[in-house]
């Protein structure tokens, strides 16, 4: 026992080496015991043995002590680190609060840059990068892509297939655990006044099992289940909650979908909304609803078993659960063999049945092929939309590509923001040179100083993230609305993935923007800084700052040029003559087949609807037609006496439409030669027809088409005399594509299509007419399904979507970049002015005028912006090549766009430097000189 607390002198906190301390302590104990026994006269061996015996298992004791000690040490270190970090943080907060204005600008800039990224990422993530929710092992679930070569379109890869393909692919049990098929679309829930649209998915029995979806309530159809082909329905969880209030007794309830009653047997697991392009509300068995689905699309007549036995209907997305351990290539090969078998089978069946009056139906531009195509192949694609889409052609890939461009753009905005923040931080670190020099002089290590500056940056990043989150919250709805397909708005809340990305981006941005200034700041020449009070030589740093400014300007130019190019594309796409006026025309359709109307009754109802609607105030004219631009086209056999064959165009055809006399004036399609239809072209009157310009040119290149004869459907049909030539119209594409079209009077029933649409020309705003038109139609009978009334423009819009998206996003980002760059110019010029105060004072003292000084500063700013402009223009011209496929009738080097951008940037640069220039003119030479 020690009486005197001498040990206190040796007091130190817990030793750093836990193990050594424990070992020493145990050794000390054993040694003391040993000595005690030795003092009693024991031999040293005996003493040691007894000491050890009394101590027990020394190794176990040590191990137990190590654990406790290490645990304590770790905890202590955490506490100590937290305390130190807290100190640095408080220091950083103080540092920022000294310059609130600068801090606000920096946080705002960073926040906007990061915010744009967060929103972008959120949208792209949902749109493209994430597997559909609620799917088990999504990496094993594959969509099948089918490649074929068509004479008129070349090699095409598409995501849809026929029932026959599905039927045969089910035989690939050696490579797939399961194969399922589905089709999605919109239909009517209920009938009459309460009818409303819902999105439904038609699925084969394997669908839910394959995806690994469980029911939240009731059961889901499965193979072998009798209900799996019947009139049963599974509700989406969201739909169940939203439309039925989460009614727990919903099972067994009947829902009228597409005019047919379906019994609810289950509710799908929460979060599952299908694997298609848009979220689904209701699932029904494919075979139980196929007829209604096709009637809804406007299929004339009942396809019967053709739907299942041929490839005439390409309408299904095929899913497969890829068996573990099977090489992807083997699965592809196996599926390809089955697909080719399906093509062969289809050709055989079609040949067997097709007589001389063979009839083919083309819907959405898809038709069956006659020969088995040696290039036909199947590939397993991801169900993650972005990956799958890039493997396809057309709109899907376009959309995915545009989205990737947008991500790149968001990155550029962030880069500009970073350059700006770095610039402001540089300016700040220069003004703090004295403070930092003092700290170094007082013995602070350089590492510690850099660490503190970095803590300041991270604090900034944290504040920036908050700004970013706010920005994302406020603008997210708008931006995502532009990006995501309609109806999938879903939750706008920032989810965890997006939040993590935001934080990561903010951290990286802060590091990027903060590291250079921090390193520079840690290297001030102590003596120099203390002596001159910060006004010393700053050459290298000044160049860096000016370089960053030029970079910002250059990047802004790239974004603005992008915005301009897309703007021009949209203009070109929307102002071209489509052959009709999409902006003033409404299209109304109501699916009467669902309500069991006969063809005669359908015609009668449409006639009545046309009559009533044309008397509505604000309606110029109304007309009935059988084909709908951008939605529905029909093609049939056409015989031209004197010609062996009819030339074909890339997009197939010739396409027909049966119309009432007002059709051409209603849509705004001009009759170029001859006449339009009149009420005299009635049933029983001589058959007449109107052909499109392209058709006239291709069939009678050297002669007038007027008075010529065409025979519809069969050689035996009477002649239809061509009485007029109408201008070409865009049937399916925004790009002008030559396609043959002809029109027949509806009353003459030459082809007798049974799908109708009502076209309405509005005097003023067509949107205002949607409600009245819908109500008028719906009121005609209480058993009508939901009447869809949309503008013709809305049918076209999806095709121009990528350009409009590009225009808005590039515009938005460009504007943002411009604002950030303007702030940058302002900041840098202000700093330059304050740095050059002495020089300016000297100039003034030796006789320079205030105007000279003003011009000096403005000229400097203009030079910097000009340099940025030149670099940016070169950069943009280089990059624009890659955007070319995304543009519409616009050169990627459009001089107008480049010119306007140049002017805008210069103006912004000059305007932003007016304030600092003005301040420069107010320098008082006397006081400046005296201060030195």
């Amino acid at each position, binding site marked *: 026992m*020690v009486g005197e607390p001498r040990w*206190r002198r040796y007091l130190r906190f817990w030793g750093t080496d836990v193990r050594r301390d424990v070992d*020493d302590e145990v050794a000390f104990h054993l040694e003391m015991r040993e000595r005690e026994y030795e003092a009693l006269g024991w031999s040293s061996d005996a003493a040691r043995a007894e000491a050890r015996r*009394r*101590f027990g298992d020394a190794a*176990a*004791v040590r191990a*137990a*002590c190590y654990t406790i000690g290490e645990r*304590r040490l770790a905890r202590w270190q955490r506490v100590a680190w937290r305390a130190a970090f807290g100190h640095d943080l408080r220091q950083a907060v103080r540092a920022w609060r000294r310059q609130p204005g600068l801090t606000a600008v920096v946080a705002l800039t960073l926040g906007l840059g990061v915010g744009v990224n967060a929103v972008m990422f959120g949208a792209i993530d949902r749109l493209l990068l994430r597997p559909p929710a609620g799917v088990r092992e999504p990496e094993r679930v594959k969509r099948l892509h089918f490649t074929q070569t068509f004479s008129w379109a070349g090699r095409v890869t598409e995501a849809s297939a026929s029932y026959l393909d599905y039927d045969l692919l089910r035989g690939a049990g050696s490579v797939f655990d399961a194969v399922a098929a589905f089709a999605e679309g919109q239909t009517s829930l209920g009938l009459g006044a309460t009818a409303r649209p819902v999105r439904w998915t038609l699925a084969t029995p394997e669908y839910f099992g394959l995806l690994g979806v469980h029911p939240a309530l009731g059961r889901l159809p499965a193979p072998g289940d009798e209900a799996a082909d019947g009139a049963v329905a599974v509700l989406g969880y969201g739909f169940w909650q939203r439309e039925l209030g989460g009614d727990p007794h919903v099972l067994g309830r009947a829902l009228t979908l597409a005019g047919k009653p379906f019994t609810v047997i289950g509710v799908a697991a929460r979060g599952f909304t299908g694997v298609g392009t848009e979220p689904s509300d209701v699932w029904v068995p494919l075979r139980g609803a196929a007829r209604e689905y096709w009637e809804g699309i406007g299929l004339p007549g009942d396809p019967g078993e053709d739907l299942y036995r041929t490839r005439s209907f390409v309408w299904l997305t095929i899913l497969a659960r890829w068996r573990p351990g099977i090489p992807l290539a083997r699965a592809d090969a196996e599926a390809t063999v089955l697909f080719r078998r399906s093509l062969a089978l289809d050709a055989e069946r079609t040949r067997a049945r097709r007589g001389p009056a063979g009839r083919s139906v083309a819907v959405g531009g898809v038709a069956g092929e006659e020969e088995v195509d040696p290039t036909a192949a199947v590939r397993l694609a991801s169900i993650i939309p972005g990956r799958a889409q890039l493997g396809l052609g057309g709109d899907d890939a376009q959309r995915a590509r545009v989205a990737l461009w947008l991500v790149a753009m968001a990155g550029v905005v962030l880069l500009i923001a970073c350059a700006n923040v770095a610039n402001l931080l540089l300016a700040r670190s220069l003004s703090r040179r004295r403070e930092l020099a003092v700290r170094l002089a007082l013995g602070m290590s350089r590492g510690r100083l850099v660490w503190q500056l970095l803590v300041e940056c991270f604090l900034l990043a944290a504040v920036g993230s908050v700004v970013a989150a706010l920005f994302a919250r406020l603008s997210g709805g708008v931006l995502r609305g532009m990006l995501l397909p309609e109806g999938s708005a879903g939750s706008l809340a920032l989810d965890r993935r997006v939040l993590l990305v935001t934080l990561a981006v903010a951290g990286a941005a802060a590091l990027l923007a903060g590291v250079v200034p921090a390193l520079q700041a840690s290297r001030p020449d102590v003596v120099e800084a203390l002596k001159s009070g910060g006004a010393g030589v700053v050459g290298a740093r000044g160049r860096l700052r000016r370089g960053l400014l030029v970079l910002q300007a250059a990047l802004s130019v790239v974004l603005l040029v992008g915005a301009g190019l897309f703007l021009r594309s949209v203009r070109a796409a929307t102002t071209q003559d489509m052959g009709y006026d999409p902006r003033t025309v409404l299209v109304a359709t109501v699916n009467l087949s669902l309500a069991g109307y006969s063809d005669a009754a359908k015609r009668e109802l449409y006639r009545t609807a046309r009559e009533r609607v044309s008397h509505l105030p604000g309606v110029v004219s109304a007309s009935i037609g059988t084909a709908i631009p951008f939605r529905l086209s029909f093609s049939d056999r056409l015989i031209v006496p004197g010609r062996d064959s009819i030339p074909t165009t890339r997009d197939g055809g010739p396409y027909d439409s049966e119309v009432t006399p007002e059709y051409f004036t209603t849509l705004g399609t001009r009759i170029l030669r001859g006449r339009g239809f009149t009420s005299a072209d009635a049933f029983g009157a001589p058959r007449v027809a109107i052909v499109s310009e392209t058709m006239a040119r291709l069939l009678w290149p050297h002669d007038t088409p007027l008075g010529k004869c065409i025979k519809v459907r069969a050689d035996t049909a009477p002649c239809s005399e061509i009485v007029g030539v109408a201008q070409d119209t865009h049937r399916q594409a925004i790009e002008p594509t030559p396609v043959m079209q002809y029109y027949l009077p509806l009353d003459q029933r030459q082809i007798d299509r049974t799908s109708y649409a009502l076209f309405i020309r509005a005097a003023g705003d067509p949107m205002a007419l949607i409600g009245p038109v819908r109500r008028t139609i719906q009121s005609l009978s209480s058993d009508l399904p939901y009447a869809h009334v949309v503008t013709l423009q809305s049918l076209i819009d999806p095709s121009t979507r990528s350009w409009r998206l590009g225009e808005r996003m590039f515009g938005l980002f460009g504007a943002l970049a411009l604002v950030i760059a303007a702030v940058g110019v302002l900041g840098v010029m202000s700093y330059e002015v304050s740095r050059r105060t002495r020089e300016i004072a000297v100039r003034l003292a030796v006789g320079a005028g205030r105007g000279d000084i003003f011009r000096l500063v403005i000229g400097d700013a203009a030079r910097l912006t000009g340099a940025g402009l030149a670099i940016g223009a070169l950069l943009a011209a280089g990059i624009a090549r890659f955007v070319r496929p995304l543009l519409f009738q616009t050169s990627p080097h459009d001089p107008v766009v480049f010119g306007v951008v140049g002017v805008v940037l210069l103006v912004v640069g000059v305007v932003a430097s007016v304030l600092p220039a003005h301040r420069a003119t107010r320098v008082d030479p006397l006081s400046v000189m005296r201060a030195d």
Partner: protein
Amino acid sequence: VRHQGVELRQGAIELLILKALSWGPVHGYAIARWIEQTTGDVLRLEEGSLYPALHRLEEKGWVEAAWGISENNRRAKYYSLTARGRRQLRAETAAWLRYAEAVTRVLRSGVQPA
């Protein structure tokens, strides 16, 4: 913890340690010696088990430790009670005595259960 003497429970070891430290800072060996001498070797424990107990007490903040020089000029780790440790000792001593008295009274009782 078992030896030729009475078995000692974990809690009891900790209590004995706290008591041993109540006179001032001592090292582990001294605690072992003190227990041995005070109990007249009745409570003979495996001396090694003192150390994990000491370290646990230290972790709980009832005891603090520092390296010092022992009476024979060797480096040794000295333990002393913290204020919280002292409070703990008081509370546990009271509880222990109450418990022991009650058990003793029962064992000494001549009255037969009804």
